[in-house]
């Protein structure tokens, strides 16, 4: 098994030089993307088979550091995330066969794309810290190069710079974490790390460092700032990969270290995780609800979903530390299920925004509208993604969100009173985030796809090609399938959950009617399949009865609009107007949103102007002071460059003497 995975990964890496070798040929883009599909499907196969037969296999390659080599290993956790990487990668590559044709400078995307996929697979496969970190860094750098594909836009360059800084910072945290994990022995193989005993403070420090390192890649508040800039800046299929898959790889890193390598952790870690997750979810979705750029909305919503996943992981940690394996299994199943679902619907939505971008050249909501008539298939598939991401039954987003809520309701069994009270409050905040997500995506879909076109480009849009539609269709089908029959995914998850928590959910596919039963029938059940059937049956029955007993008559007429329809599409509700209620209610605190009106004096002929100003709180409170502080220290340190030789010698001697002093006191 592991050989197949290694070959697939290697194949992806080899496609990069191939892309360079073939540069300039007309068909290279289609070829490279088509060839990337195969290894991705291979990864899917490896993942599925691994989750089925529960074998773990390992291999050591004689590359990398001479005394370690590169360890690769397949276990349940790796299998699951290979599945995620494989599905996301295959769908994206299929999509890119169509989308890549519209790329202006394919030479800036093609060489990096397969390597990026390979690096993500390698992160998941790695079984020693060195390979892991190298793969992680390659993943970061290649994704950075992909973000910079359209480097001529100033906004993209700024995004790239911030991303690079944050990626370096995150990797630094991970290096420190693995350094602490390996201890003084310096054996970097995961097997050795796992068996090493370590003290509680060290474990806690490692958990915190990994939260920073992996969290910065996943977009956890307050390390999320790069994400809404970098994800939209990349070409859309890369955005889909970054949001849909790379954030999941970061979550893999967190799970691997915290639930596998560290060993036992105290419960005190969990409130930090839960609170971080909840803050991430709420802050992310409030931003999404007021952003004007389609891809920016999606990027912010990624932050929200990562927050939900981290909150669920925090719950799992709480239950694990308090020795409640059943509840921990439920929490972890919810988290992993959401990982899978988010991969599906977020990739789908980024693809559809890419389709809109291809068809209209725009991604600002105020320039779109009416696409449901111009691009019917894309619009329908997007609708599925939108319903899924808004956590609405019967699709998959709700199924995992529902399981998170079921986990929250397990909190009364926790022995710590403070935690017990925190968890329902956190659940309320997650519900707030879910409800806000619905608001944000009504806005997304209503402004982008419904109504009347707000620009000539939108009014003349044409449906995109079949590759893009096929990729989106596949992911939409996955959303529907995972939503209607959660048992399909949940039962695949069982070995992963069992490996990490030593417990698992009841076998879901054995339940009657494919009902989801997280704990017990008396406690909670949910049957999306039946609910969907009931709705479909009653809706068609109602339509039939009404058409039979009433009338089928229908007349087209101008819109009524309370009597004064204005033909200009600008009289519709726009992005700013739709966001105004939420901006006013929540934005005042969370975004420091203000509205300014510049009124010209009476008689002047200049137009009045209305502006909305909103800031990211974290940017203002954490990053700007930090930047100012660094600048100040740097300015101060600048003086050190203009000293005499004698002074420098004095510094050297002072340092030496103080070191000696420390040593003498220490001994």
């Amino acid at each position, binding site marked *: 098994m592991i050989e197949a995975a290694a070959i697939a990964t290697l194949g992806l890496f080899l496609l990069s030089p191939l892309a360079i070798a073939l540069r300039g040929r007309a068909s290279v883009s289609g070829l490279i993307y088509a060839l990337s599909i195969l290894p991705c499907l291979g990864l899917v196969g490896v993942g599925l088979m691994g989750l089925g037969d529960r074998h773990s296999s390992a291999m050591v390659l004689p590359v990398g550091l001479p005394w370690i080599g590169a360890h690769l290993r397949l276990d349940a956790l790796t299998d699951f995330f290979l599945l995620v990487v494989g599905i996301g990668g295959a769908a994206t590559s299929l999509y890119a066969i169509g989308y890549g044709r519209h790329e202006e400078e394919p030479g800036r995307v093609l060489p990096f794309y397969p390597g990026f996929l390979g690096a993500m697979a390698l992160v998941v496969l790695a079984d020693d810290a060195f390979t892991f970190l190298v793969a992680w860094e390659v993943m970061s750098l290649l994704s950075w190069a992909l973000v910079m594909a359209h480097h001529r836009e100033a906004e993209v360059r700024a995004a790239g710079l911030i991303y690079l800084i944050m990626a370096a910072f995150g990797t630094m945290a991970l290096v420190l974490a693995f350094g602490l994990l390996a201890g003084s022995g310096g054996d970097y193989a995961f097997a050795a790390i796992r068996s090493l005993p370590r003290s509680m403070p060290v474990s806690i420090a490692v958990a915190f460092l990994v939260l920073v390192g992996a969290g910065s890649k996943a977009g956890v508040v307050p390390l999320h700032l790069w994400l809404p800039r970098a994800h939209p800046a990349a070409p859309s299929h890369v955005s889909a990969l970054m949001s849909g898959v790379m954030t999941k790889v970061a979550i893999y890193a967190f799970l691997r270290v915290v639930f596998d390598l560290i060993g036992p952790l105290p419960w005190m870690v969990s409130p930090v995780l839960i609170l971080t997750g909840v803050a991430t979810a709420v802050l992310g979705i409030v931003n999404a609800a007021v952003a004007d750029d389609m891809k920016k909305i999606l990027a912010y919503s990624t932050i929200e979903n990562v927050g939900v996943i981290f909150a669920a992981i925090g719950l799992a940690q709480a239950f694990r530390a308090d020795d409640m394996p059943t509840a921990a299994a439920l929490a972890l199943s919810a988290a992993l299920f959401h990982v899978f679902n988010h991969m599906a619907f977020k990739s789908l939505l980024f693809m559809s925004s890419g389709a809109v971008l291809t068809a209209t050249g725009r991604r600002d909501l105020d320039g779109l509208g009416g696409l449901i008539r111009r691009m019917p298939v894309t619009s329908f598939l997007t609708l599925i993604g939108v319903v899924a991401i808004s956590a609405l039954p019967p699709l998959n987003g709700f199924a995992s969100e529902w399981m998170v809520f079921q986990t929250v*309701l397990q909190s*009364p069994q926790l022995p710590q009173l403070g935690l017990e009270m925190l968890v329902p409050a956190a659940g309320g905040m997650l519900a707030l985030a879910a409800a806000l997500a619905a608001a944000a995506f009504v806005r997304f879909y209503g*402004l982008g796809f419904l109504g009347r076109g707000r620009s000539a480009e939108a009014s003349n849009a044409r449906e995109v090609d079949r590759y893009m539609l096929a990729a989106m269709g596949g992911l939409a089908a996955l959303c529907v399938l995972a939503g209607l029959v959660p048992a399909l995914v949940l039962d695949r998850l069982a070995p992963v959950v069992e490996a990490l928590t030593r417990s698992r959910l009841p076998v879901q596919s054995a339940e009657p009617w494919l009902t989801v039963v997280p704990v017990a029938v008396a406690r909670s059940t949910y*049957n999306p399949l039946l609910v969907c059937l009931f709705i479909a049956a009653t809706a068609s029955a*109602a339509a039939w009865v009404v058409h039979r007993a009433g009338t089928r*008559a229908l007349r087209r*007429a101008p819109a009524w609009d309370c009597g004064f329809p204005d033909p200009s599409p600008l009289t519709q509700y726009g992005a700013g107007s739709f966001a105004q209620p939420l901006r006013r209610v929540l934005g005042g605190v969370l975004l420091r949103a203000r509205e300014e009106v510049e009124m010209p004096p009476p008689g002047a002929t200049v137009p009045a102007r209305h502006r909305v100003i909103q800031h990211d709180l974290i940017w203002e409170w954490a990053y700007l002071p930090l930047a100012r502080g660094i600048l100040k220290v740097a300015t101060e340190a600048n003086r050190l460059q203009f000293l005499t030789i004698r002074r420098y010698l004095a510094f050297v001697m002072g340092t030496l003497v103080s070191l000696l002093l420390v040593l003498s006191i220490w001994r």
Partner: protein
Amino acid sequence: MALITGFAIQGLQMLLVLALAPGLVGLVRRIKARLMRRPGPPIRQPYRDLLRLMRKEVVLAENASWLFRATPYLVFAASWVAAALVPTFATGLQFSWTADLIAIVALLGSARFFLALAGMDVGTSFGGIGSSREMMFASMAEPAMLLTVFALSLVAGSTQLSTVVQVLHGPPGVGLRVSLGMALVSLVIVAIAENGRIPVDNPATHLELTMVHEAMVLEYSGRHLAMIELAAALKLLLYVSLIACLFVPWGIAREGDPPVALALGIGTYLLKLALGGAALAVFEASIAKMRVFRVPDYLGVALMLGLLGTLLLFVSRAL
């Protein structure tokens, strides 16, 4: 045999809620009119309105898409299914396990989602106003509702509505709980907001700037409008039944009870509905509508009560 009875009772419940829903709306209107010293329309007026609407032709905006035409049926179906899953006169119905309380709330959320999208489909300013405000209210009301659900299901140890009702109803019952009181108040606030009643929204108004739900469905006519009105009535009935079965569970028949108990259950249910409708009418007649931006504060109270109820629950449980 038991299976057939189960299906029959479930079917009876579905038909019952559908048949009663417009009547409840009529009752509320009638009592409200009487309180304002108007004679008011007869209680059966909503039935007549619905029948008439169904027989009228649909006037559809020129650029309305398929989503606009499908939404009324979807919204109606989701509301009806949700209403049929709430215990009205009997618990432990045949299909009560298909969706728990959280899923029922989310099902209503799906209905609202599609209605809000339909409001934006024709591309008018009023539709946009309605959708935007509806979603703002929903983003406050849904977490409040969920916190209430948390409080209730932490008491009952289940989110399964039938189980919750049985635990609350007893024996042994759960005693007087201040948390339950808070959950009740919170649920009432959410119910008023969700159904667009005064003081949040005025179902009778056609003054553009004050309306929310009505603005959203402004472009609908004929049978589509009938479906939406019926769905709104079902939603009102759902919330009244929910409050009734959770907080005044007396008289509800249990699984396997004899037909007499079922008849008693239906009788008490009708009584509860009438009382709930009357209370709503009195409340609506005695209060003024709020400004739109006052509503978040109002819903914030529900959110706070739900949270407080959950917190206080731990006090009595920790002893």
